[in-house]
């Protein structure tokens, strides 16, 4: 039946009942504004906050238009570490807030787990369900049956909640998949973690030493700035890396060692410093213990010994050690960041710390400066219940693992095996457990064993598909977070994250989610503050300011930092002996080598390459690949492969191949980057690509995932960190493996991009094909 235009709407009749019902129906999306009273939202420019596009948390200024739209983000010139600079990721942050793929509403699973079928629910419905399930699990299995996987300062409120709830199983990849072994190594030696940002006094350093650290690709704006300034000032640079990284291109010495042999190089450097009497003798005599044991330990670990292992010339090892010694104590030996390489990484951390000590560079000008605690009191909260023993092995199986950050892979194992006790629920908060923890297949199997899987996030990352409940968190641009205190700064400071724009859709800040859950779990007293502003005021009270007073600048400095030791007073390190421990009784007590011992990594099987991975300046972890701007600049990663090897294999720059690892795991397509800038025994890709969540429309299936080629990992028995550079790959082209038929040397092919005034002095290239490695984090 059709209706003429003239008749349309002219003869509408309804039953009186229907009319009443329809007339009474309301819509609530709009409201009238007084014609004269409404001036529209005024332009608010330059709201200061802190970035979260990576963990460096630079100062930002958000520019918002009259509609409340964040138009652009600038660096905050008041920020002590970045001085107004901001990297590409920081500049692209507004695209996270306006990403159409972001999570918008609480979602409840209605299909099978993994099917991706959800129903939008209200926050009340979501949180009531969440709390009910947690209480049921605690009643039946104990609070320890709940595992919490947080990441970032936004998760601190929920972590506080989980501690109040009673679970000990709180685990972050920042430890076991990143800097855990480094911090363990330095803590065992100096009594303190390195922490973040790494407290390197590049402002005064005369020599920078990077063991795999690839600043420039691994962009932390403040550190990059300091690095560039140090180079400009004339500081020297030694870079140890199997790859001709951006940092290597700036180096005075580039040492492309055989991957996995770093500890041998470090021990040989230690040998040279001691046996050529070049170390800082007064510093060691006064502040260190175990020197004689160390001297004996490294007696045979000569540069000649290390040369055979590292494939670096003995003379170069000796020369670089002497170069370092010539700048004592102003040597900035970068402790590294992503440190979980081969499963013996705490000992590599120890070797780096010991070398730092011999150079007299800890707590000294130009070396590593001391962190300064910031008086930001915690808001009063009732004592937490005494938790059960941990399931992840932190403090037990892995005696030196952080109990604060835990061992993610340990908790995955426990969930998978049900030992030492069943884990029934995971709460995954801003963490991508399937793209950060190796062996994602095991992680998936563990998830399948759970009674409850809750995901709190901004974007629908991989684990979202397996969630029973999804809670949309507001982006870092839309929320307050806990106070960010930076004690690793020569002038320490506290910075605030505050909303630049209102939260979009029904996303909520982490503090709100945690407090609402607390109400439902009977833990209100753990969140006794009136509102988030009052909470922050309380924390800032130790610095003598209020939130309101610092909102315009976004931060407050604390001028009482003491970056160097005052040697006019007794110096006591926080180790059992009170001294720098070159020899560790603690390690010995637990059955570990008290001094670092080189362990050879597994050799690369014939026909394979060692899989190395690292960073790009345009992306952070697996978090930013869906960002419109960043995806535009770098939509996919590529695979670095040595040019001579590529020629022998008939591979062409720019063509796509697949990778197959030693266990038959096949990668997505990846484009070849044929370059002389990598050893012939390894290939390299940037971490974080080939997202498996199709809801990340831009990132889905783009590039290859390093994590999904990590069916193996080797656990560091000291820290629990997962050595992940133990996987090997071969090239698959047109469905067939491309085999290496012989050794190829790339000697003499590397060039520095540095200007003629400071050419790379020494470039050495590997002798053999069979081998490995690199670094980053």
């Amino acid at each position: 039946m059709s209706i003429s235009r003239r008749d349309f709407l002219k003869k509408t009749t309804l039953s009186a009942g229907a009319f009443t019902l329809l007339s009474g129906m309301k819509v609530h999306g709009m409201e009238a504004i007084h014609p004269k009273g409404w001036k529209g939202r005024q332009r608010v420019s330059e709201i200061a906050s802190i970035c979260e596009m990576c963990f460096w948390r630079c100062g930002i200024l958000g520019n918002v238009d009259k509609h409340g739209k964040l138009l652009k983000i600038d660096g905050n010139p008041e920020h002590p570490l970045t001085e107004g600079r901001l990297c590409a990721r920081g500049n692209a942050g507004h695209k996270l807030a306006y990403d159409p793929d972001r999570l918008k509403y609480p979602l409840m699973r209605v299909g099978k787990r993994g099917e991706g079928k959800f129903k939008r629910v209200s926050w009340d419905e979501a949180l009531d369900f969440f709390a009910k399930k947690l209480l049921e699990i605690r009643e039946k299995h104990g609070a320890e049956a709940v595992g919490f996987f947080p990441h970032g300062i936004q998760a601190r409120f929920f972590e506080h909640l989980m501690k109040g709830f009673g679970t000990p199983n709180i685990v972050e990849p920042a430890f076991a998949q990143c800097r855990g072994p480094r911090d363990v190594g330095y803590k065992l030696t100096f009594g303190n973690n390195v922490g973040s940002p790494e407290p390197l006094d590049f402002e005064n350093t005369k020599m920078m030493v990077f063991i795999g650290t690839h600043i420039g690709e691994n962009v932390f704006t403040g550190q990059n700035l300091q690095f560039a300034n140090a180079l400009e000032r004339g500081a020297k640079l030694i870079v140890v890396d199997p790859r001709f990284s951006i940092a290597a291109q700036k180096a005075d010495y580039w040492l492309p060692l055989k991957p996995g042999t770093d500890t041998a190089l470090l021990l040989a450097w230690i040998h040279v410093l001691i046996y050529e009497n070049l170390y800082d003798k007064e510093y060691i005599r006064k502040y260190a213990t175990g020197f004689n044991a160390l001297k004996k330990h490294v007696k045979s670990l000569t540069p000649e010994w290390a040369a055979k292992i590292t494939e670096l010339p003995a003379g170069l090892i000796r020369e670089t050690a002497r170069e370092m010694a010539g700048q004592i104590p102003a040597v900035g030996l970068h402790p590294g960041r992503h440190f979980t390489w081969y499963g013996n990484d705490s000992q590599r951390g120890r070797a780096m710390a010991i070398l730092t000590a011999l150079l007299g560079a800890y707590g000294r000008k130009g070396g590593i400066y001391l962190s300064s605690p910031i008086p930001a009191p915690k808001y009063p909260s009732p004592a937490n219940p005494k938790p059960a023993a941990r399931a992840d092995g932190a403090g037990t199986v892995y005696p030196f693992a952080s109990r604060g950050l835990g061992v993610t892979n340990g908790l995955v194992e426990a969930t998978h095996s049900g030992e030492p006790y069943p884990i029934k629920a995971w709460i995954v908060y801003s963490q991508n457990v399937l793209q950060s923890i190796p062996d994602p297949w095991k992680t998936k199997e563990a998830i399948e064993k759970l009674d409850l899987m809750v995901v709190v996030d901004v974007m629908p990352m991989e684990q979202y598909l397996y969630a029973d409940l999804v809670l949309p968190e507001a982006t870092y641009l839309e929320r307050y977070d806990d106070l960010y205190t930076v004690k690793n700064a020569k002038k320490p400071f506290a910075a605030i994250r505050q909303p630049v724009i209102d939260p979009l859709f029904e996303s909520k800040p982490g503090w709100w989610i945690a407090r609402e859950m607390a109400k439902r779990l009977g833990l209100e007293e753990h969140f006794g503050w009136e509102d988030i502003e009052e909470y922050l005021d309380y924390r800032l009270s130790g610095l003598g300011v209020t939130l309101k007073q610092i909102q315009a600048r976004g931060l407050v400095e604390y001028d009482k930092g003491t970056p160097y030791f005052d040697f006019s007073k007794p110096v006591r390190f926080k180790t059992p002996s009170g001294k720098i421990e070159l020899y560790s009784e603690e390690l010995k007590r637990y059955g570990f080598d008290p001094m670092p011992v080189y362990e050879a990594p597994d050799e690369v099987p014939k026909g394979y390459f060692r899989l190395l991975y690292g960073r790009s300046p345009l992306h952070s972890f697996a978090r930013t690949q869906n960002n419109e701007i960043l995806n535009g600049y770098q939509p996919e990663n590529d695979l670095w492969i040595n040019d001579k090897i590529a020629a022998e294999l008939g591979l062409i720059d720019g063509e796509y191949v697949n990778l197959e690892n030693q266990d038959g795991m096949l990668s997505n397509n990846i484009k070849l980057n044929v370059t002389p800038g990598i050893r012939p025994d390894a290939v390299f890709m940037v971490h974080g690509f080939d997202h498996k969540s199709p809801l990340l429309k831009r990132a889905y299936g783009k590039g290859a995932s390093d994590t999904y080629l990590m069916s193996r990992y080797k656990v560091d028995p000291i820290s629990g960190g997962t050595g992940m550079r133990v996987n090997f790959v071969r090239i698959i082209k047109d469905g067939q493996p491309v085999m290496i038929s012989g050794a190829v040397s790339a000697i003499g092919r590397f060039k520095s991009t540095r200007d003629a005034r400071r050419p790379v002095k020494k470039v050495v290239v590997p002798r053999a094909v069979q081998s490995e490695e690199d670094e980053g984090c």
Partner: protein
Amino acid sequence: METVELSEIETRKTAYKIFSRLFYYPGEEIARLLYGGVIGEWLEHILPGKEAERLQTWVASRSSAADLLEALQVEYTHLFITAYPNLPAPLYKSYYTEKELFGADARNLMDIYQQYHFKVSSHMTEMPDHLAIILEFIYRLLEKEAGDSLLKDFAISGLTDWLPQLAKRIEENASLPFYPSLIHLLQEFIRNDLSLQATQKSGA
């Protein structure tokens, strides 16, 4: 049965209001009105034909209002909020015109709303260019009896340029007949309404 005859303006207002409500996330009230046949009756009345019939037939096939609500909520989530492997049909204009949220179109709409002394409610968690909000705005304009010529200009630029894309995506991805029928009915209604206004303006 007692009946009520609606004026043209009442009819148009009611239609935009109903369509607006139907494109917000479904709640109990809308499920009750649908299941009770009130909305179906209305749609069949102003837009008689197979789409209205198909919609009403499907609604009537559900076992209860609660069953209907559950089905609509799952379908709405699947079509407009999130779905595996791809979100089919977001309800934001900027998504189609600029491939992002809160784009220039959304902000232009905010300016238009303000021009007519409206704004998106502070408690509203949808974007200014969400289809339901646009429809609600038209309803409110009619309620205020704002000029039809302005409404027409706005309606053409603000609605019709992206609805065909939305409709296509809904049709291709819906697992239930409800939303495909609904978007067809909405498009038909707007076409008819604009034609009517044009005819009246020309004095025909």
